[in-house]
């Protein structure tokens, strides 16, 4: 008789995926907001280069992204070695590397969502803040950021969902080490390679869906709660 519950390894994969995706999203969020702001409001040379760079992981096959990560953050790779020797911080074959891969893949989605939100904030409000003596940073912190809150939430959910589903770059960069780097998509992939493990696949898919729907509902609720107060004035 087959258990209706997940196997212990599958549970491990679920928790790991959650950890990886949350760390990936939360840690890259400030950077995403900053880059989105640069792209939306900044005027500097190389803006389009930055823009292109941010979008790259979207346009490249994930395997290539994973391979490029390996070439830069691997143990033999320049940045990877530097991190390891200077801070003892290893990315390769660790969950931290999975988080990096997920973050890189999710980054363009987060940046775009937040950028669109920033672009629709009326610059007149930012002007008003300036007349009240607010520095750029103060204005951003207290005027722009609260106004783009829905976009930040949307970007985070989008990025998180992508991070949960990311497979190709992750397995290429950090492989599939149960308990270390075996995320739910890796587990699903493995189960799909062997005939007759469809029920395992189904359970993992279901749990992904439940988690995603839960996150979506929470995000919608967060935004609605906020909007109730604020609304377009």
């Amino acid at each position, binding site marked *: 008789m087959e258990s209706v519950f997940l196997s212990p390894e599958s549970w491990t994969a679920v928790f790991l995926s959650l950890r990886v995706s949350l760390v990936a999203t939360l840690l890259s969020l400030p950077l995403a907001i900053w880059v989105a702001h640069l792209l939306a409001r900044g005027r500097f040379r190389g803006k389009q280069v930055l823009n292109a760079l941010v979008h790259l992981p979207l346009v490249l096959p994930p395997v290539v992204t994973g391979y490029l990560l390996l070439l830069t953050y691997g143990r033999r790779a320049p940045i990877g070695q530097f991190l390891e020797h200077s801070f003892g911080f290893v990315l390769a074959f660790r969950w931290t590397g999975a988080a990096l891969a997920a973050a890189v893949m999710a980054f363009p989605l987060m940046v775009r969502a937040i950028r669109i939100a920033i672009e629709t904030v009326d610059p*007149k409000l930012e002007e*008003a*803040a*300036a007349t009240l003596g*607010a520095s750029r940073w103060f204005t951003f912190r207290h005027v722009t950021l609260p106004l783009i809150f829905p976009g930040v939430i949307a970007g985070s959910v989008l990025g998180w969902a992508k991070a949960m589903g990311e497979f190709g770059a992750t397995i290429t960069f950090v492989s599939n080490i149960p308990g270390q780097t075996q995320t739910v998509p890796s587990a699903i992939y493995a189960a799909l390679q062997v005939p007759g493990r469809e029920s395992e696949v189904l359970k993992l898919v279901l749990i992904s869906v439940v988690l995603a729907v839960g996150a979506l509902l929470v995000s919608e609720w967060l935004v609605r709660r906020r909007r109730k107060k604020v609304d377009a004035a």
Partner: protein
Amino acid sequence: MTLNVAITTVLKGFDLDVNFAAERGVTAIFGASGAGKTTVINAVAGLHRPDQGTITLDNDTFFAADRGINVPVADRRLGYVFQDHRLFPNMTVAQNLSFAKKARGLRQDGQHHSAVLEILGIAPLLGRYPTDLSGGEKQRVAIGRALLSQPKVLLLDEPLASLDHARRLEILPYLERLRDHSDLPILYVSHSVSEVARLANQVVLLDRGRQIQVGPVTEVFSDLDAAQFLGRDDHGAVLFAKVVATHADGVTEVQSSGGRLFVNQTVSSANKRIRLRIRAQDVMLSLSRPEGLSALNVLPCVIADIRSEAKNSVLVQLACGPDRLLSRITERSRQHLNLQIGMPIFAVLKTVSMAQEAIGFQAG
């Protein structure tokens, strides 16, 4: 503090070219819709970059085209009340009001703070978000926000346009106090002649970007050439006077350079200086001193100038001592009384015709 503005800039439709100095007190910028008033204020604020010229506040240069100086908005220490309120929709009224304090790291001046809330009647709104405010309420909060930012220059762009009469009457004395008891240059855009008459020390008249007149309010408002820009109804001279006595029945007797007048408002302190606006249409002319009339104010004057206007009316400039008054009468009356320049005449004013809002206080 003196704010010097000397700029030119190309706009859609015409060029803007202004050059004036605003001392402490109120400099009203007056002109038709689209004349360029907001653009002038925006240039001072740093929100519009003029093509040429300079803007300085005492020794601080805000803008100098030839030296490439353009101080960032946030460093100019202005309080700006926008034509559109521009409240932050994500903050409550209270948070909007304390924004500048937080942004500039100012000390709270509790007394000033509550005085502003009181005068603007916004204390009951503190917990609300801008979206829950009426148009006038938003505007009042915007005024409060600017006043509480401890600015060195105050820029007011039609601050009272969306407010009712009663509310204006409450706010005006506060602006007067600000004018008289602070060192602030205040640029004030308004379409209301009565507001300008009451508040302004100086008037800048704009017409399609051209600066037509600049001068003390008393001069501009008694000028026959400026008349066409001020609108027939509201047009009239501004006088300064000193309180002489407060009578038991509430009538206040004041002394202007041209003579003695009775004002139906209790002004407690004797010797206080007040300003009066006397509308051209509220001044009747009489060849002899009239009797048995409810009008208590009769000033002996000499006709200084006469200008025929459209619609068969005549604008008469009167010299009453050193003061100038304007009187608008019909062509028919003029013929009837046979008025000529240089003729002595009596100006008859009803006490109450010195409109309440036209009686302003003036420190000095």
